């Protein structure tokens, strides 16, 4: 054996039945691998060997079809021998061993994640929702309302006549819109334990708190705008979309850093959802403008709403830093006021 003097490499041969190492020399001859030592002498087809991948650290272990294996702790000698024999490495192995490829992969990952965040996840969430029956929205909304009633709300103390007046004003405003663009909805009044607020629950429930009604002095135009905004959340199924988007973001974040800590993995999900939520608020504001215009009100009335909300908050102007905006679920007030003011002027 070994007359066709090719390059050699020293290795340990294990037969797969005993743990004893047999020193051997390896040589490639044609399409055969020659394994030769004091206690072992055999030859196997080269293509039947499962070759190890090149790494900078760690020994090389090649597997033969019958369970025997070849170990070589001198990785450099092994790699030189494999190279001399003319073996080709897979693209993955070459990429893993090159910083240039690694950097290129990182850039690609960032681009893919950004594209996925901007277009992929919202598109997938919307597509998933078209397949989801609206009964699911209703049951989610019911559960949410029950939980909110238990912890955050009390029955409304507004006079029934006032409740009916507000609901009537909103119904007239909505009636002016094309019927197919108006989702099924009902308005419920609650006394809040968490200050003035209004929100939309999946399935069609619009919750309006006594505190908010009082804060805007029951101004009909503003309340139509606020309810129009919440109607926008319903029309775009924002609540359900948020659930789907959080699930998608959570899956991706878990894939990237979840191995290390699920706590850290929740941070990008939280920041990412806040970004989606700000987009949803902008969509809902656009709907508020539509409803206000349909009812014959100027969208600029909403500027007074933000002023009324800010006046009581903490005495000062609500100016927010970049960090605060990044983690906020709503766009900055200044931006939203500008939007409504412009919409009022554009009329």
């Amino acid at each position, binding site marked *: 054996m070994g007359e066709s003097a090719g390059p050699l490499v020293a290795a340990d041969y294990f037969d*797969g039945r*005993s*743990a004893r190492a047999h020193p051997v020399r390896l040589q490639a001859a044609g399409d055969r691998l020659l394994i030769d030592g004091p206690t072992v002498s055999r030859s196997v087809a080269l293509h039947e060997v499962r070759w190890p991948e090149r790494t900078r650290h760690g020994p090389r272990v090649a597997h033969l079809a019958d369970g025997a294996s070849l170990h070589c702790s001198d990785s450099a000698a092994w790699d030189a021998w494999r190279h001399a024999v003319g073996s080709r490495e897979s693209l993955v192995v070459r990429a893993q*061993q090159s910083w240039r490829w690694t950097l290129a992969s990182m850039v690609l990952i960032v681009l893919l*994640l950004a594209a996925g965040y901007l277009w992929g996840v919202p598109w997938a969430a919307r597509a998933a929702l078209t397949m989801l029956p609206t009964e699911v929205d209703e049951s989610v909304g019911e559960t949410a309302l029950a939980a909110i009633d238990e912890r955050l709300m009390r029955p409304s103390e507004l006079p029934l006549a006032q409740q009916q007046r507000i609901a009537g004003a909103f119904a007239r405003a909505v009636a002016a819109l094309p019927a197919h663009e108006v989702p099924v909805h009902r308005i419920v009044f609650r006394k809040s334990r968490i200050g003035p607020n209004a929100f939309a629950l999946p399935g069609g429930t619009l919750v309006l708190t006594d505190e908010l009604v009082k804060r805007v002095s029951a101004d009909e135009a503003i309340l139509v705008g606020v309810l129009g905004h919440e109607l926008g959340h319903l029309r775009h199924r924002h609540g359900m979309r948020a659930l789907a988007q959080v699930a998608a973001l959570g899956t991706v974040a878990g*894939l990237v850093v979840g191995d290390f800590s699920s706590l*850290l993995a929740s941070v990008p999900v939280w920041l990412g959802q806040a970004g989606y939520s700000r987009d949803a608020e902008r969509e809902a504001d656009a709907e508020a403008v539509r409803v206000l215009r349909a009812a014959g009100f100027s969208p600029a009335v909403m500027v007074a709403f933000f002023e009324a909300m800010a006046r009581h908050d903490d*005495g000062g102007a609500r100016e927010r830093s970049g960090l605060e905006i990044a983690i906020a679920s709503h766009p900055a007030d200044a931006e939203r006021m500008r939007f409504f003011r412009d919409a009022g002027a554009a009329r």
Partner: protein
Amino acid sequence: MSQPSWIGPAGAEPAFEAPREHRLDFRFTGSGSEYFRIWIVNLLLTIVTLGVYYPWAKVRRLRYFYGNTLVGGQPLDFHGNPMTMLRGYVLIAVMGVLYSVAGRFSAVAGLVAFIILAAIWPALLRSSMQFRLANTSWRGLRFRFVGSLGDAYAAFLPAFVPGIAIVAALAAVSDPEQPPAWYAALMGIVSLVALAFAPWLWWKLKKYQHDHYALGPWRTRLTASCGSFYLVFLKTAGAALAAGLLVGVVVSVVAVLGIVGSSLGGSGRSSPLVAMVIGLVLAFTTLLAMQLVPRPYFTSRMQNLLWSRTGNEAMRFGSQLRFWPLFGLTLKNWLLVALTLGLYWPFAAVASQRMRIEAVSVTALVDPDDLIDQARGAEGEAAGDAAGDLFGLDIGL
């Protein structure tokens, strides 16, 4: 092959001579920067293929970690076939979807799904152990997992009792939004009982695993008592409490300083922002202390207990993993992973693997050269391995 004893070739040593001890050290030779490159390429391929590449990525990762784990100078190796593993993942994904859909459908369907899961879970876990060990080798010998199916059920089924009680109670409640008083009481009792039995369950699980590892003629046993597990759990609770107290003191000091500072400064305008920043910092400190102290404490104490009590008459493992170095490493890993937005994670994984692996050693009364494989173990289902992966259960070293 036909040798019945673990002493190797008959008559190799005179019977009266005291057996010589062979100490095999564990070394880990992997590098963070190399694993970083493997990880990035794996991540890219997994994202591009929408997850289909995941089993291949996992095999590459395991082969890197195993190949760099040297026991007595010889590496471990992983032989799992990604294609088999992919089938396992698909099966598990389908089961997971069916399970979560059943829960949404109705409480009774949820209960049925949970019982079915409990019924096949022990078999899956055993399968996972078989797959993992049958595909791991050292010096050309494959490991085996020899736990029986009956033992798997005996070990794991008690863990499902609290879950079944809760899901069954939920199915019995007519209106989940207005649960009756007995429901809340039952929840409390079940949680307390589950907490009290958690160390016992953990002990049963670990005993089932460590009693059934085999290599050649060797089979390990776990001699740690249930009481020693309770001790580790209690000490961990104590460590968490101490950390909590420390954080409490720091929080109070910062709060007092904050009050003094704001009354001295008198700048009413910036105080809400300052308060928010202080609040965030404190929240993170608390979270980190709750995560940072108990986990490495439990890891080090449990690893030492498990592995210094695993062995047989011919070989014995040892583990001296110390808490403070592991705590320091965990702190460093957390900070750097957070600062680099996750990019440090492969370095962190390699560093903690090194610390944990290199704390372990084996002392054998037999020359490892004389080990003879007796039987090839059943390979097990890759679905089991996938299940263990998805639900976070693994062999633990």
